C-alpha cells in the first residue's frame, strides 16, 4: 500500500479540530511563551551594578588615575581606594567587598611604552565564593579595560596601533553585546527553549492520548499507515508552534528592542527545522510510552533538562569537560541556541552556521524516521 496524502490530510484535519476544541491547550500554547518570555525578559536582570571594589593604586600616575576613572564611569563598580597595608587589612577584615583591585607600580610607564610584549597590568582579586559574581566582575572589568584602551588611543593618537592591538583580544568577547546586557542573551535563547519544549510536550501527548482513549485501536484497524499518522500529527502542531515563534520574534525585536542583525530567512528556516525536530521527538516519546503521564515525564527529561543544562544557556559549553562538549552536540537545543544567538546579535553569514544547521536537520530527520519506525501497527504489548 502506498503512502496516501488523503489519509495524512484527514489525520491532520482531525488533529486541527481537536486543537480548536480544546481551549486549554490552545491557550497554553499561545500564551505560555508570551508569559515566559515577557517575564524573563523584564524580570530577570543578571546585570550586577555598583559592585564595591577596593582599589590599591601602587602606580599613582595620571595613567592609572585616568584608568580608574574609566572603570568607575562604567557604572558597574563602586571603587573605594585603600592606602597602605593597615587600611588594606582593615578592609579585608570588614569583608564587605567581593574584590580588590591592585594596580602595580610601573603601570603608567608600561602603557606609555606601548610594548605589546609588556602590557600594563591590573590585578583583580575576586571573592570566589560567589563565582557568578566573580566571573561577571572579571568580564566587566575586561570590558572597562577595553574601553579605557579606546579612550587612551583617542587621547594619544601616536600610540593608537598598539592600543588597538592590545584591546583586540578583549574586544572579541563583547563585540556582539557591547552593553553587556543579559536580556539580549536571554530572550532569543529563552524563546528557543520554551517553544522547543512546548513542541515536545504537545506531540508527546497526542499519540499517547489516542492509546489511552482507545481510538488508536480503531485507527489501526483501518488502512491508515504510521507515516500518514506521523505527518498528519506533525503539520497542525507545526503551524501552531511556528505561530509562537513569530510572536516571540516580534516580542524580542519590537518590545525588548533586541537588534536582529542576521538573515531573517535563515533564522526562519532554522526555526522550521528545529520545531520539526522537537515535534518529531515528542512523537517518538508518545509512540514509545503510549501513556500521557509517562510521556509528560519523558518530555520533561529529554526536553527541559538538556535545554538548560546542555544547550549552553546556563553553563557555557566551552567551559565544559571535553566529554560533555561532545555530548552536548547530541542535543539540537545546543545548535539552535548557537544559531539563534548568532543570528540575532551578529550579521555573520549563514554559511558560518552550516554545522549547526546541518546538525538540526539531521536530528529532525532522524526523529521522523524513528517515529515512523517505532509506530506500532498492532496492539501487542
Amino acid at each position, binding site marked *: 500500500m502506498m503512502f*496516501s496524502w488523503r489519509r495524512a490530510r484527514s489525520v491532520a484535519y482531525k488533529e486541527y479540530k481537536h486543537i480548536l476544541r480544546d481551549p486549554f491547550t490552545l491557550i497554553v500554547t499561545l500564551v505560555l511563551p508570551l508569559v515566559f518570555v515577557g517575564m524573563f525578559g523584564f524580570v530577570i536582570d543578571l546585570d550586577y551594578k555598583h559592585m564595591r571594589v577596593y582599589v590599591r593604586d601602587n602606580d599613582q600616575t595620571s595613567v592609572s588615575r585616568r584608568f580608574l576613572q574609566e572603570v568607575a564611569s562604567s557604572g558597574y563598580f563602586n571603587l573605594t581606594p585603600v592606602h597602605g597595608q593597615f587600611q588594606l587589612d582593615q578592609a579585608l577584615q570588614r569583608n564587605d567587598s567581593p574584590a580588590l583591585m591592585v594596580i602595580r607600580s610601573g603601570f603608567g610607564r608600561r602603557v606609555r611604552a606601548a610594548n605589546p610584549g609588556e602590557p600594563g597590568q591590573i590585578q583583580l582579586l575576586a571573592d570566589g565564593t560567589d563565582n557568578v559574581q566573580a566571573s561577571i566582575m572579571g568580564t566587566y572589568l575586561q570590558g572597562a579595560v577595553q574601553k579605557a584602551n579606546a579612550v587612551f588611543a583617542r587621547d594619544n593618537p601616536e600610540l593608537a596601533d598598539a592600543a588597538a592591538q592590545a584591546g583586540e583580544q578583549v574586544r572579541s568577547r563583547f563585540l556582539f553585546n557591547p552593553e553587556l546586557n543579559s536580556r539580549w542573551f536571554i530572550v532569543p535563547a529563552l524563546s528557543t527553549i520554551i517553544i522547543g519544549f512546548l513542541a515536545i510536550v504537545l506531540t508527546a501527548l497526542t499519540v499517547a492520548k489516542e492509546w489511552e*482513549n*482507545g481510538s488508536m*485501536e480503531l485507527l489501526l*484497524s483501518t*488502512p491508515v499507515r504510521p507515516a500518514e499518522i506521523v505527518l498528519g500529527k506533525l503539520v497542525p502542531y507545526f503551524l501552531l508552534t511556528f505561530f509562537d515563534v513569530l510572536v516571540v520574534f516580534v516580542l524580542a525585536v519590537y518590545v525588548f528592542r533586541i537588534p536582529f542583525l542576521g538573515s531573517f530567512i535563515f533564522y526562519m528556516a532554522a526555526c522550521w527545522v528545529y520545531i520539526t525536530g522537537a515535534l518529531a521527538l515528542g512523537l517518538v516519546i508518545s509512540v514509545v510510552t503510549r501513556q500521557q503521564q509517562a510521556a509528560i515525564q519523558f518530555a520533561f527529561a529529554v526536553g527541559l533538562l538538556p535545554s538548560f543544562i546542555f544547550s549552553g544557556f546556563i553553563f557555557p559549553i566551552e567551559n565544559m569537560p571535553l566529554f560533555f562538549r561532545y555530548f552536548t552536540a547530541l542535543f539540537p537545543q545546543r545548535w539552535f541556541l548557537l544559531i539563534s544567538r548568532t543570528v540575532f546579535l551578529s550579521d555573520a553569514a549563514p554559511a558560518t552556521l552550516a554545522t549547526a544547521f546541518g546538525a538540526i536537520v539531521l536530528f529532525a530527520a532522524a526523529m521522523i524516521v524513528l517515529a515512523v519506525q517505532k509506530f506500532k501497527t*498492532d496492539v501487542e504489548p
Partner: protein
Amino acid sequence: MPALRAQVRGVSKKMGRAQALRQVDALFDAGKVHGIIGPNGAGKTTLIRLLAGLLHPDTGSVSYSEGGQKFSSAQAKRVTGYFPQEPSLYPDLTCEEHLEFFRDLYALPQEEFEPRARELLQATGMEPFKDRAAGKLSGGMYKKLGLMCVLLNRPKLLLLDEPTVGVDPVSRQELWDLVYGFAGENMTVVVSTSYMDEAGRCAQVHVLSDGQMLASGAPQAVMRQFGVNDFAEIFLNHERK
C-alpha cells in the same frame, strides 16, 4: 462480493503474564452471525484482536478465505471492520465528522460515501444526531456511531467486541437488528458478549472460558451438548470441574 471466512487453528496467545488463549480452534463460516460467548477474562477480546490482525498468535494460525480463495492477513485486514469494546471514538468530534474522517481513511470516493452515509444514518436512526459530539451520545448511540464508521467501508468481516455492554435493552435490541440487517451473503459478523442471554441471538456460538474453546455450534445444539438450559450453566459446570 461474498463474505470472508476466517479460521483459527491451534492458537495460543500470552498477554503479559496471563495465558489469554490456549490451543483455540474456531471456524467462522462466511455470511453468518457468530457469537463469542464468555465471561470477562475468558479471552474474547484477544481472539477478536487476533482476527482483526492487531495481535499475532504465539503458536497456531489465523487464515482467511473467500469462496475457496485464500486471503493474506494484509488483504484480509483491508476488508475487515473492527469496533473495539473500549470507547474509541473522539469525544470532541461530531458524528458527521467521524464519518468524514473514516471516509478519508478508507479513501472512499464522495459519490460512494454520500449514499452509504445516508443509508447508515437512516438505518441507525442517527440522522437527527449527526451534529452531536461523540462524547455527548448515550451508550447505545455511541455504539451505533462506531458501527456506522466501520460499516462505511462495506467490510466482508465485521468484528464487534462486546457491542452491547452497558447498553439499555432497547438499544441492545436495535444493535442486534442492525447487525442482522447488514449481515448476510456479503458480510460475516463476529460479536463477542459476556451477556449469557445473548448467546441465543447468534446463529453460531463459540463458547470461550479461561482461554479455552469449550464448544462451537448453533446455540440450541451447544446447550443440548452440555445438557443445560442456559449458557450461564455451562460456565458454572465448567468451573466446578
